[in-house]
């Protein structure tokens, strides 16, 4: 359910045009997308914007040198996990030690052999892919394949901050499967798992921009970026109807339902924080449960309240 990137991006940062042309020719045909920057400042900017899997970094550059640039990359949470290989004309062992100690994963000395370059780049990308996969696995829910609670918390914080910065809408939906314990007791836990998996599939079949997470137990958190409360409630209602309409083989008469609490940034009072958003969505979910379950309750926008 969670998508992997297919073609890795590699950013070459070197102030020599000759080296860029050489890298382009030598890495042609490799399964990667090569980008280039001819100064460390441009390189830093591109690293932040592109978030490549790998950076090939020269040491000796005018202005900020490669070591200083690596320092900046490691300071920034958005770039600190990018793999860096130094490609340098220096053959000083202490430069290699310094680079590797600072967090570079490899060191290639110029002039480089084309086959060695390709092999080292492939190896770095392979390791990076495995690292990302492990990172991703640690944030996935084992049963449903959805993002887990850790991911949800981080992503909500990130989306709230983005929405504030760009003054974009953001909707949060909390959903809880109704009387789930009773389902488990009546039909057994394997059936309960089947319900969780099927509901997850319904949620994942929505818009590609939606972020669907298993919040815990039979509760789900859905983050809708660039979506206002009206649209968010429509989507939640569609999901509610889809769950209610699901057919359960072996139990043809069974109807599983879910309750939804929805809010957006404009419904919040005071500070626009992820905690405040979560609290309000939870309050709306509670209202939905109190109103007889199997319904969607949406918070009001502050300006619409009398």
């Amino acid at each position, binding site marked *: 359910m969670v998508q992997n990137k297919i073609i890795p991006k590699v950013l070459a940062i070197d102030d*020599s045009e*000759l*080296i*860029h042309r*050489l890298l382009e020719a030598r890495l*042609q045909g490799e399964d990667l997308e090569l980008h280039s920057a001819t100064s460390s400042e441009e390189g830093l900017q591109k690293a932040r914007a592109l978030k490549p899997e790998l950076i090939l970094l020269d040491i000796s550059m005018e202005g900020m040198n490669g070591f200083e640039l690596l320092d900046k990359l490691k300071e920034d949470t958005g770039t600190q996990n990018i793999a860096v290989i130094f490609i340098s*004309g220096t053959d000083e062992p202490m430069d290699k030690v310094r680079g590797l100690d600072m967090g570079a994963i490899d060191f290639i000395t*110029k*002039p480089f052999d*084309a086959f060695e370059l390709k092999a080292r780049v492939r190896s770095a990308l392979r390791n990076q892919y495995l690292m990302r996969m492990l990172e991703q696995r640690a944030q996935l829910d084992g049963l449903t394949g959805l993002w887990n609670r850790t991911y949800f918390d981080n992503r909500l914080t990130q989306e709230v901050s983005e929405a504030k910065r760009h003054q974009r809408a953001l909707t949060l939906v909390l959903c809880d499967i109704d009387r789930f314990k009773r389902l488990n007791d009546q039909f057994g836990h394997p059936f309960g798992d089947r319900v969780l998996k099927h509901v997850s599939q319904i949620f994942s079949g929505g818009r590609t921009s939606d972020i669907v997470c298993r919040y815990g137990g039979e509760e789900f958190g859905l983050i809708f970026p660039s979506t206002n409360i009206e649209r968010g409630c429509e989507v939640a209602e569609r999901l509610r109807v889809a769950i209610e309409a699901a057919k359960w083989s072996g139990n043809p008469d069974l109807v599983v339902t879910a309750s939804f609490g929805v809010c957006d940034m404009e419904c919040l009072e005071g500070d626009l924080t992820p905690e405040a958003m979560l609290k309000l969505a939870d309050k709306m979910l509670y209202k939905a449960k109190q109103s007889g379950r199997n319904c969607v309750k949406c918070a009001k926008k502050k300006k619409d309240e009398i």
Partner: protein
Amino acid sequence: MKQELVLQTRNGRRERLELGMNFKEPEDQNKGKPILSDFLDDESMVKIIQDFLNEIPHRIETIESHFDSGNKEQLCRIVHQLKGAGSGYGFKIITTNAQALEKKIRLAEDAWQKTASKARENLVAILYRVYAGRNISGQA
């Protein structure tokens, strides 16, 4: 009459460079056989080797002018780049000679031009010989 060199950069931009008195046609300078790239039969390299060769007059010009004006830092930069790229383009001899010159310049203090003079002459002579090979089949 001043000579001009038109370069096409990697991103497709064209640059017109004016060559001064420091660049002379290889016939006057060439004291050895033309040097050819080790990668002549590598199709992926043909275009970039051709561009590299076309830019040699400009590089000689730059080396000579930085040397004459005593611009040690810029001279080191261009020589360092040639050291790093030479072998990659199939000219190990450029890397070897650029390395020797870079070492001389970096190690020497005040009288670096005197100390590095011979190494500079060697590198420039090699560059002329590489440039002289540009019209030989497969390289241009």
